[in-house]
């Protein structure tokens, strides 16, 4: 008899949250705190979604997506989690670029970028100020016809080097491209420029453990290894979910799973308007990623002046196509120093991240796949050699993740590591107007992506769920 991962679960809940990414956990926490009976279901064996980590023999521990997020996380953690979690958030001070166009170090905030743009890149101060003010005033519901490329052409025409300076880190943070709407870029970039880049001292494992304790304190029923098989809908209204063959009734369902999987796989297209399903099918998934995780031998300590984040590239120009190519020319190195986990043995880790296409990895034979992973590791170590000399002699453990890895652990379609493109936001927001009590809070369209975006989208949706549960009769179905 297999273990019952739902042992002791109720037969009905006010809210079932599907998926424990930061958006799902935050929504669950807020609703639990408000007194609703909340069930949080995670398909994987641990909480966190892509806010995750893994351990390897010899005491090695790797963070997947910890560095770095905007300052807004402090406020969101304080308000929707607790003081201790908020107090763990610390700045990353050394952000580096190294590419054929320029090499520089920055604090990655508005003051320092103004300095760089006016001195090093020779832009008039008024122009730089005008650019910052222009993007700071952007709202996600603004006109979306202007692309990121057009935004840059308007303020810094012909300056490929400035585009790279402004764009490369945001592409790393949320997968955005020059072809995406300018508002999506502007909002995220402004968030960073406000106060720079932050991380969480204690590591992802500590963060997620504290969040789990807070969820339990607020009465949330937390279950791992519980993949949802079905969201049940009766006459355009949510009725419950099926997990491990067991039916659980729910007044509302919040899906933190991939948007397309939520609608097409868990709910089923027959419960939605035809033209809505057409719109759903037109939503593009965001790209996936590859990562290489490198642990240095214990006691081999890198000087922190190497940087916290290093955007390294050998490509002559910044091009979206080149970023996704199997022929990798651009890598973001995240350096993790012993100060991140003060109580762990002193070790340094480097995680190399690159955007990637699922198609390039999906259909490889096992032999080709194994070989490709090894090539990815080799080329990454070659690239890192420039910054960490003799790297091969210093490595204690190294391994790679591909789009297939991300697909396996998160259940995301095509291993999408940043949810869907911008058009997904409209679909996500419209869900409760199609099916009463059905909500989605997951990565859609860049601004609702990344750690802060995901968490804040969880807040926005928790507010809507509370609204619906508190006064369901007043929630009118639009359209």
């Amino acid at each position, binding site marked *: 008899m297999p273990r019952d991962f739902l042992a002791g679960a109720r037969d009905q809940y006010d809210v079932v949250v599907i998926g424990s990414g930061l958006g799902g956990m935050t929504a669950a926490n807020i609703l639990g705190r*408000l007194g609703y009976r909340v069930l949080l279901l995670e398909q994987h064996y641990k909480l966190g979604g892509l806010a995750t980590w893994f351990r390897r023999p010899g005491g090695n521990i790797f963070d997947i997506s910890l560095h770095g997020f905007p300052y*807004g996380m402090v*406020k*969101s953690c304080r*308000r929707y989690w607790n003081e201790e979690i908020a107090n763990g958030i610390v700045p990353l001070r050394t952000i580096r670029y190294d590419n054929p166009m320029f090499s520089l170090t920055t604090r990655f905030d508005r003051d320092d970028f103004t300095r760089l743009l006016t001195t090093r890149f020779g832009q008039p101060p008024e122009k730089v100020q005008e650019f910052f003010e222009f993007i700071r005033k952007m*709202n996600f519901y603004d006109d979306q016809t202007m692309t990121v490329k057009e935004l840059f052409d308007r303020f810094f025409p012909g300056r490929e080097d400035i585009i790279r300076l402004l764009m490369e880190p945001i592409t790393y943070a949320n997968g955005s491209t020059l072809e995406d709407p300018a508002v999506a870029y502007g909002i995220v970039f402004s968030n960073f420029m406000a106060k720079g880049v932050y991380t969480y001292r204690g590591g992802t494992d500590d963060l997620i453990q504290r969040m789990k304790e807070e969820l339990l304190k607020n009465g949330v029923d937390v279950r791992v290894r519980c993949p949802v098989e079905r969201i049940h809908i009766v006459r355009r209204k949510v009725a419950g979910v099926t997990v491990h063959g067991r039916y659980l009734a729910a007044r509302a369902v919040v899906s933190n799973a991939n948007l397309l999987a939520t609608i097409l796989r868990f709910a089923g297209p027959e419960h939605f308007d035809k033209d809505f399903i057409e719109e759903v099918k037109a939503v593009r998934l965001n790209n996936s990623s590859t990562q290489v995780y490198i642990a240095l031998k214990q006691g081999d300590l890198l000087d922190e002046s190497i940087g916290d984040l290093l955007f390294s590239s050998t490509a002559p120009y910044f091009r979206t196509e080149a970023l996704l190519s199997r022929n990798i020319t651009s890598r973001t190195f995240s350096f993790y120093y012993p100060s991140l986990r003060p109580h762990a043995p002193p070790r340094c880790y480097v995680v190399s991240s690159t955007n990637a296409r699922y198609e390039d990895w999906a259909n490889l034979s096992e032999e080709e796949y194994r070989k490709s992973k090894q090539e990815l590791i080799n080329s990454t170590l070659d690239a890192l050699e420039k910054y960490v000399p003799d790297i091969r002699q210093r490595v204690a453990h190294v391994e790679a993740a591909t789009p297939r890895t991300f697909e396996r652990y998160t259940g995301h379609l095509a291993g999408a590591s940043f949810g869907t493109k911008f058009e997904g936001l409209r679909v996500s927001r419209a869900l409760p107007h199609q099916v009463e009590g059905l909500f989605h809070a997951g990565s859609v369209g860049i601004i609702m992506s990344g750690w802060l975006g995901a968490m*804040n989208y969880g*807040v*926005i949706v928790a*507010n809507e769920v*509370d*609204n619906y549960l*508190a*006064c369901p009769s*007043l929630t009118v179905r639009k359209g």
Partner: protein
Amino acid sequence: MTPAEIRSLIVEILANIVPDVDLSQLRDDVPFREQLPLDSMDFLDIVMELRKRFRIQIPEDDYGMLASMASAIEYLSPRLVREKA
């Protein structure tokens, strides 16, 4: 509730959202965002707090009515009448 009561209620909610800011100089006719370091998430917190205390429903299309103290009082006055008990 009287306008004065609603005003002090909103000040109380704001004090929790921006604890480091002096709210005694708050001007009623100027939008909050022009006087206080508030973002759209902060407005959401105001809406959630009002709902928690009064079970009052504020549709998203009406969030703009909370932009300044004057418009918020005008919007909330008729809606908070019956909720007081």
